[in-house]
């Protein structure tokens, strides 16, 4: 294992120490339990947006803390979800009294830890709602799996919902907006190489020099299918068509019902893409793929979207949700309406995403 680290067990701690020193105008870092939060938190009159997950996906989530996006991010160990005490302390720190929205990627561990955290926060009198992001079309089935994973749409949801919170949306309206972003976003990723968790020291899976893995998640977990490597155009087509031609996706998720005061099962369905849809096209590097290759993917994605009658109204290209040093990419298409476009364009000032301020 070759990594720019000191000791494997100190990676997350030292990363956080560096972030605290690098961006003091934007964020503060709390240790034990660990979380990154807005330097000006709690922001009066604003609902707080908190996300989190395993480390190793940088800049997500810590790099998205700041005005116009997240109020706090809770990093777990590498590829391991954070623990409830982190989210609880973060919620207590950034809650202005208007409540807290947890944006949670649909992984068994993340879901359980954020649900426990929400229960604990409510016991302390903080209003909390959890919204899941589950946009990975590589997972076909919700009945015999833990359901679709939360991937690229998470970044877009954090930006759009963060902007809405800044504008004064209340907690309920933010939860509805976040759910809307989620059901309109679809993603799929692929890997050219595996990645190495520092504490493990060995690649999580082996890929031959002429192989690629299609349908990977973001934790170095193997994907749906292994095949011989293809050209960028062929790979882009494979991912893009899986997304564009994905049928309606139905599943049941757990959300907190404030009126009933209990967790309830909510049925959600993602409407498929259709000609005329306006979309945000997001081409993301898994970490190790250099910037020179991403426009090559975007070029083909643009062509496919045109052919399918999808109008790309915004795009995002770069390294935004990664899997350590893995080479590969993911594509996300998010169907946008006027409200979402307007919120996407709103100013944001974070270490990982910044415009308009």
């Amino acid at each position: 294992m070759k990594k720019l680290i000191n000791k494997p067990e100190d990676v997350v701690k030292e990363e956080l120490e560096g972030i605290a020193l690098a961006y003091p105008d934007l964020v503060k870092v709390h240790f034990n339990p660990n979380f990154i939060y807005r330097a000006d938190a709690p922001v009066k009159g604003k609902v707080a947006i908190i996300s989190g997950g395993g480390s190793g996906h940088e800049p997500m989530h810590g790099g998205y803390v700041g005005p116009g996006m997240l109020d706090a991010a809770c990093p777990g160990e590498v590829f391991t979800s954070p623990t409830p005490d982190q989210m609880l302390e973060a919620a207590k720190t950034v809650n202005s009294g208007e409540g807290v929205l947890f944006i949670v990627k649909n992984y068994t561990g993340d879901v359980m830890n954020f649900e426990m955290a929400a229960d604990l926060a409510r016991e302390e009198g903080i209003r909390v709602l959890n919204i899941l992001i589950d946009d990975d079309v590589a997972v076909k089935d919700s009945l015999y799996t833990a359901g679709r994973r939360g991937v690229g749409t998470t970044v877009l949801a954090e930006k759009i919902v963060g902007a809405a919170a800044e504008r004064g949306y209340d907690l309920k309206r933010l939860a509805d907006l976040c759910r809307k972003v989620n059901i309109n976003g679809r993603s799929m990723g692929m890997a050219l190489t595996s990645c190495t968790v520092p504490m493990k020291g060995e690649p999580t899976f082996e890929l031959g020099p002429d192989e690629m893995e299609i349908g990977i998640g973001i934790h170095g977990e193997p994907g749906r299918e292994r095949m011989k490597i293809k050209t960028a155009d062929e790979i882009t087509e494979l991912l893009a068509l899986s997304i564009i031609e994905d049928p309606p996706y139905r599943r049941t998720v757990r959300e907190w019902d404030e009126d009933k005061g209990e967790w309830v099962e909510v049925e959600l369905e993602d409407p498929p893409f259709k000609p005329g849809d306006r979309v945000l096209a997001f081409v993301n590097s898994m970490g190790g793929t250099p910037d020179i290759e991403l426009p090559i993917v975007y070029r083909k994605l643009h062509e496919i979207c045109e052919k399918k009658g999808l109008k790309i109204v915004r795009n995002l290209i770069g390294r935004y949700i990664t899997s350590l040093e893995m080479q590969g990419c993911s594509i996300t298409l998010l169907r946008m309406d006027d409200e979402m476009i307007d919120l996407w364009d709103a100013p944001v000032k974070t270490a990982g995403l910044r415009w308009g301020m």
Partner: protein
Amino acid sequence: MSKNEMTITKDDIIEWLKATAAVLEENAQYLTELDSPIGDADHGINMDRGFKKIMSKLPGVEDKDIGTILKAAGMALVTSVGGAGGPLYGTLYMDAGRAVAGKMELSADELVTLLDAGLKGVVRIGKANLGDKTMVDALTPAVEALRKALADGKDLVEALHSMTDAAHKGMKDTIPMLAKKGRASYLGERSIGHQDPGATSSYLILKTLMEVIESRHASQ
């Protein structure tokens, strides 16, 4: 000592936690290797970290009752393990602790109550069914075997052997299973042929309980 007289003391429970910490440290690499092909290669590391946290919290509760000790252990796991393992194992120990609140020693039947409560907690939050390729596949037959062995009149040590054997079989039975819960479920058919890491750690924890009780029994 006859079958009805042997009890599980508070010191046994403390010894069980300490021995489990040692066993999980020893097996951290093994569990993580099991987690690599079908998970995310962190189960052994996470459990090791969790039980080290329990070790650091034990001195503060050692003079308390078994319920309090187990609840503290569960809380330590919830706040240190992360992943799905944190809430699942944390709930197992916390619910087990609640089931024997206030007790300084347990009868064999109360040990069943303790383990059964822990198992029910895991099922409640993990929603896994038997055969989904999870820790439930080791725990369920183990608790059942313990209950049955005691009902059949076996002494505690014998019954704990039956429990451990059942957990071992349950763990091995996960190999041909198709995962339906957790991260392994994303692999579909490719999850077949791999032993579930969670079922394995559950087996190790139960086996350690048997060894602790057996070794005290042998020394008396």
